[in-house]
């Protein structure tokens, strides 16, 4: 078992030696990793640590203020900067998942280059953990916070040097560390939220109207699902554009012994198959009966194997009634997964009644949403987030 006390004892002298007499700025998002990294670094270098949260425009409802209050309670003062305009400008016109992630990375670290100068800090501290560099080095997805590991010289390019105190740990170990450091339960038990935030849940090009509907959908999912159901739970939004897929409908009807129609969305999501990146389309199934989630999650594999374009299998929960069956422009997928360390994950077996309640609320709150689905694809072959 991971010994958090021993880890702290071994880390403190190393971190102090690394920072020397310099000041360091922590890139804080309020997520578990950066909060725990902040607490550990605070213990190591105390007043030499400054904290900054960038409001990228992709945070959840009211989040920047909540994080500031939460960290204050944990003894760390955080400054907040609204830089959402810079991010929206940098992402304009981009729809490929990797291009978006790379544009996010460039914008993020250009700003931190500027801010480390403002704060007179030699070092930038971040909460990078093992899955971040493993997925990036493996070419599955470029996590925005991976720089040195892929050969980026941060001192030359951005003007700061990096400290990553948690780089060899997994999420469950980081939580134990947070607890050992005396952080409040609400800090170290929070469900993870990716650095690029809602950007990776807004599939394809990011627009302010889709981000607004996504933000409402995510809040609804977070209201109905709890940490007891899933280690991560959220909604993603994508275009409804696509076409009926007769062959998949036939295959699914046979698989589930049910009347099934299949709709192949043009939207693409990231997956991992046999240690290789897979960027494929979303297929939405409409089944006659409410099948158990465990059955759906098991049998989706046959659809993913036999249809090379398909990355994820989504099952329709509810759709918006429109005149003459017209499709509204966007669709939403609810995702809830169980995992220890986020390297693999299974689909949470949320009851249909609860899925329907969430879908109903999402449809009522989001006038542009056509269908609400539940994503029944585990990792592998999917990943946890969509992009």
């Amino acid at each position, binding site marked *: *078992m*991971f010994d958090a006390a021993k880890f702290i004892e071994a880390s403190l002298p190393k971190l102090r030696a690394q920072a020397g007499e310099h000041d360091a700025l922590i890139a804080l998002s309020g997520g578990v990793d950066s909060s725990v990294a902040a607490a550990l670094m605070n213990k190591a270098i105390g007043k030499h640590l400054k904290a900054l949260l960038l409001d990228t425009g992709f945070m959840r409802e009211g989040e920047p203020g909540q994080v500031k209050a939460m960290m204050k309670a944990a003894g760390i003062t955080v400054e907040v900067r609204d830089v959402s305009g810079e991010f929206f400008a940098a992402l304009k016109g981009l729809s490929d998942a990797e291009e978006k992630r790379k544009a996010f990375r460039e914008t993020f670290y250009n700003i931190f280059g500027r801010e480390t100068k403002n704060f007179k800090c030699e070092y930038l501290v971040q909460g990078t953990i*093992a899955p971040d560099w*493993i*997925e990036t*080095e*493996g*070419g*599955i997805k470029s996590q925005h916070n991976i720089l040195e590991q892929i050969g980026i010289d941060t001192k030359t390019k951005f003007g700061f040097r990096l400290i990553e105190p948690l780089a*060899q740990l*997994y999420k469950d170990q980081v939580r134990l560390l947070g607890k050992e450091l005396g952080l409040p339960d609400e800090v170290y038990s929070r469900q993870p939220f990716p650095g690029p935030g809602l950007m990776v849940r807004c599939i394809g090009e990011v627009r302010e109207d889709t981000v607004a509907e996504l933000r409402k959908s995510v809040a609804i999912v977070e209201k109905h699902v709890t940490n007891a159901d899933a280690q991560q739970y959220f909604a993603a939004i994508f275009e409804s554009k696509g076409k009926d897929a007769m062959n998949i409908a036939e295959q699914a009807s046979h698989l589930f012994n049910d009347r099934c129609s299949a709709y192949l969305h043009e939207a693409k999501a990231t997956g*991992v*198959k*046999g*240690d*290789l990146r897979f960027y494929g389309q979303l297929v939405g199934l409409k089944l006659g009966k409410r099948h158990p989630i465990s059955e759906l999650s098991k049998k989706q*594999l046959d659809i*993913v*194997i036999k249809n090379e374009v398909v990355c994820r299998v989504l099952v329709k929960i509810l759709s918006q009634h429109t005149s003459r069956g017209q499709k509204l422009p966007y669709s939403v997928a609810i995702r809830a997964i169980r*995992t*220890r*360390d986020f*390297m*693999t994950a*299974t689909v949470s077996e949320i009851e249909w009644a609860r899925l329907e309640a969430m879908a109903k609320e999402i449809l009522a709150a989001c006038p542009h949403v056509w269908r609400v689905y539940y994503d029944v694809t*585990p*990792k*592998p*072959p999917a990943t946890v987030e969509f992009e």
Partner: protein
Amino acid sequence: MVKIAAVKVGGQYNHLIARTIMDLGEESELVPLSITLQELEAQGFDGVVMGGGPQRVADEQDKLGNLADIIRNAKMPVLALCVAHQLIAPAFGGKAGPAAQPEFGAIEVFVDDEDDLLKGMGPSFKTVQSHNDEILVLPKGFSVLAHSEKCRYQVIRHANRPLFGAQFHAETMQGEKDEVIFQNFVRICKESGK
């Protein structure tokens, strides 16, 4: 305590192999794919686990470092996972290549023979799979310890050396019995060192 190397073949779960062994209270180190058998011996390892990777076994064996040499010649216990498991076949005159039916996610594996490595894991266990390729022809001198519905050679072993291959990723610790295979391998390493 034994010291077991985890070779960084390039797969998603290589680092978890080292974590798993350390969580069992043993010593483990992630070593580069370029490592040789002589280096493993010189560095005092009691056993080696070779992780999975993105290489396709049929035409990318040149991207698998010295794994084939380790598989052929190591005296220390070897546990070859995923692509390294597949590599055992061509290394001993068998064949590996694209699977008719790849497997991803939690899949049931059926134990044919518990032997040493699968002690306590029968009659079946659920574990994570993530493979596009598989062993197609089992080389002579190997026996099958487990299979799944879609894959015949899930676990194999050499007739008289502690050389084992497993197609799946128990190091992800998602399945209830996943830890057992590593406990067994640690025991095999301890016994082999006596």
